[in-house]
């Protein structure tokens, strides 16, 4: 079982940092303001506070889920507290803030695009750092209680057996509010490949 401080965690943290910077840059452009990126936390298994950044387990979030194919497979999910997602939608559509008041079709489409841009930025950085070929799938827009989404990704990964490694990156805006939570989880069958890269 991998533990914090093991080569795979160290390497993934380094690789993820670059991914997070690029993803944050993408988000910053879309949100029209500076975005601070916390150093990604690479965790093994679940963590009770995994959803705290977006307001707690039962908080309604809007986000995008992408599966990862290519040299390694896995999961990428970008989550926003709903109000934050709606603000983003207004910004992306050139509308006055507050125009979009509930997640409608346009909001879903915009959030899918956000997931595409931010998720792909992270995945591309990962591919560059590791020399792996990675293809993110088209995004599925998800809207649910935060913990329901996070635990479902955990279940997908865990169901394949082996270690579960989840990479969390929290984005914050200039006032310190959470601007988004990005979760990346490679499938266990790919961890050996990542371990080789870490060696």
């Amino acid at each position: 079982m991998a533990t914090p401080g093991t080569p795979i965690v160290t390497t993934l943290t380094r690789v993820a940092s670059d991914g997070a910077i690029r993803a944050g840059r993408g988000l910053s452009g879309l949100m029209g303001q500076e975005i601070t990126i916390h150093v990604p936390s690479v965790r093994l298994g679940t963590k009770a506070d995994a959803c705290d950044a977006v307001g707690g387990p039962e908080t309604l979030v809007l986000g995008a889920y992408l599966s990862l194919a290519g040299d390694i497979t896995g999961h990428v999910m970008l989550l926003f507290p709903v109000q934050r997602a709606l603000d983003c939608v207004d910004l992306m559509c050139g509308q006055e803030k507050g125009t979009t008041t509930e997640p409608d079709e346009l909001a879903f489409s915009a959030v899918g695009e956000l997931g595409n841009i931010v998720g792909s930025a992270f995945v591309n950085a990962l591919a560059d750092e590791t020399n792996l070929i990675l293809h993110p799938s088209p995004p599925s827009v998800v809207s649910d209680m935060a913990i329901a989404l996070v635990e479902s990704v955990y279940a997908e990964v865990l169901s394949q057996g082996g270690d579960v490694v989840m990479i969390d990156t929290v984005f914050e805006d200039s006032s310190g509010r959470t601007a988004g939570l990005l979760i990346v989880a490679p499938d266990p069958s790919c961890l050996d490949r990542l371990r080789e890269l870490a060696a």
Partner: protein
Amino acid sequence: MTAPAADIRRVAVGIGQLAVSKSPRDVLVAYGLGSCVGVSMFDPGAGVAGLVHVLLPGSDGKPQDAKEPARFADYGLDLLVKSLVDAGGLKRRFVVKVAGGAAVLGPANAEKFKIGERNAEAIKERLKLHGLTPAARDIGGTKGRTLELHVATGRTYVRTAASPANEL
């Protein structure tokens, strides 16, 4: 009798965990069940109640996880039944309710591992093995659910992000 609102103690039942209580103050809650399944059991005779938060279908011989003893449907249900019996419950009186097993990650992913569906099936089979039939079920679909069990009354409620609590 239900305890006054101020005295209520909400006990969160996390992933792969279970809780058993005889205290009328307690409300056992499994927050945001996505593909996971929550199973509640209540023995009205003994006033004992339990809730389990199952993450995956059958263990297929995999060992029980120390941190998530109820990770798999078989271990989880066996443990819940045993804990209730140990606390004075009588299996034939158990009122069983099941909620969860949704596909929350979108239609493309839903077809991949079908974890929610397989969880629900594994729970059904394991309950059958124990001679238990659910009195109510709210499973499948595409939305996460929170399941809560009020120990004082044995009543269970399910809510989603879009709908308030409905009695199950």
